[in-house]
């Protein structure tokens, strides 16, 4: 640790390392969000993270764990509910997203001795990242990457055509469950950085930028990771020099790259 200490003791470097770690997992997951049109779904899960925070405080358990569990349960409930088709999926998602957020906020207000920095959870507090947070991000990120790498062919095939994947023997229902779990883990990991309100942006903007340039799914993932890392570095630099909030700055720099790529590159190749 002694060699890394100068880096890990500096809050800016901790923030940068954590941010790059998040970009590494946000890239591939963001691609799935773009491919499977899950942007609003992701938003709903992210909003429910605040409920996870409240429950974590209530039951005195690790916040990352409670956020992961809450998001995963909501994801499964959503998949089940959207199958019943009683309401259109976007209506259902709209109801659950904001209800989960509101319930989370109300639940937190019932804990008066608790001094919670709400802004930190809503918009991220990257610069306050501790060594322990960094460990969680890198550990959670490693789990997510390992899962994605292991399940990649099935996840990709099920995304291209679900029935074809099922006929070819991929366990599509279980893969979908795995994707929900990965999603929940990424939200728990990324929440620290950009906050629940901006997670979806961090997922889809780099992936959408990559779509303009990529000619294969794998290239799109690598490019999305690259654009995510550029956004994190750019946002943190902006935050450091002009003293802007770190999370929103990252999203602003991701958006800037997106606009530049779409303005300068004429057409997608594939």
């Amino acid at each position, binding site marked *: 640790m002694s060699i890394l200490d100068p880096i890990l003791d500096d809050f800016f470097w901790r923030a940068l390392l954590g941010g790059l770690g998040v970009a590494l997992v946000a890239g591939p997951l963001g691609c799935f969000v773009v491919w499977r*049109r899950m942007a609003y779904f992701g938003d709903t899960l992210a909003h429910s993270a605040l409920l996870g925070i409240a429950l974590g405080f209530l039951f005195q358990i690790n916040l990352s764990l409670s956020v992961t569990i809450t998001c995963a349960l909501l994801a499964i409930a959503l998949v089940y509910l959207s199958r019943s088709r009683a309401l259109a999926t976007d209506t259902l998602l709209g109801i659950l997203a904001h209800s989960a957020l509101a319930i989370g906020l109300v639940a937190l207000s019932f804990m008066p001795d608790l001094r919670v920095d709400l802004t930190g959870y809503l918009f991220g507090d990257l610069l306050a990242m501790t060594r322990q947070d960094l460990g969680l991000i890198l550990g959670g990120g490693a789990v997510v990457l390992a899962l994605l790498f292991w399940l990649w062919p099935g996840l990709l*095939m099920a995304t291209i*055509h679900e029935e074809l994947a099922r*006929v070819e023997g991929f366990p599509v229902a279980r893969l979908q469950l795995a994707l929900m779990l990965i999603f929940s883990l990424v939200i728990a990991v990324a929440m620290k950085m950009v906050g629940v309100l901006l997670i979806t942006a961090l997922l889809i903007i780099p992936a959408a930028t990559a779509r303009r340039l990529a000619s294969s799914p794998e290239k799109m993932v690598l490019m999305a990771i690259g654009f995510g890392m550029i956004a994190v570095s750019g946002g943190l630099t902006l935050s450091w020099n002009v003293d802007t909030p770190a999370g929103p700055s990252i999203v602003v720099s991701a958006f800037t790259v997106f606009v530049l790529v779409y303005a300068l590159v004429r057409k997608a190749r*594939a």
Partner: protein
Amino acid sequence: MTNLLVRLERASVRFDKLQVVDDVSLDVHRGDIVTIIGPNGAGKTTLIKTVLGLQPLTSGSIHKTPGLQIGYVPQHLQLQTTLPLSVRRFLSLTGASTKECQAALHQTGIPQVFRQSIHHLSGGEMQRLLLARALVRKPDLLVLDEPAQGVDINGQAALYDLIRSFRDQLHCGVIMISHDLHLVMAATDRVICLNQHVCCSGYPEDISHDPAFVETFGRPVAESLAVYQHHHNHHHDLHGDVVDERHSSQHQDACDHHVHS
């Protein structure tokens, strides 16, 4: 019976109160080409989905030969344009080698699209690509849902010829759904006319004379396929239910009467 690939016995599928597939029994052997025809909403797609394992049966049973490899050509391939995908990558996802993928494209007559984006293919090229993809998996059973959809009339005949030649080459069984009656009659071994239940089934030359067939497709169609016809023994009302003037309580018997196979 080692050549038996799939056996459906009294298979029924019901969505809530709607009977979609009603008491269908069907055997498919190696080398068979079975074509399912029938009006819209007749349960054709649902029936083949039970064979594919995508749709559970409400009652009845399905038996597939253990280890049966199925090649599936779906009806509409709605691909997300947000996912960049080349023809090459789409084929290689089956685990086949580059050489095998190219050979399959060659056989289906579209070798030039190998490096193209899948989003830039024409309707006919897409159908041929899907067929090629089913073939690289070396299926025992090929299941096609309206394979000639979006293909021009010359291409349609060529496509059915292609399917027949693959049957000969792979010695696989084929089940397909089709609306192209003229072409189907020439390219198939056995036709099943479905309207929830099996209206009639048999060899193409027999079935075009069958009154149930005439009833389902209307006289002009049947007459264009067959020279003569005889009187019907059952009718379908607007719900597709069988109305038999003389034996209205025995509609299943009336239908079975027409099974020629």
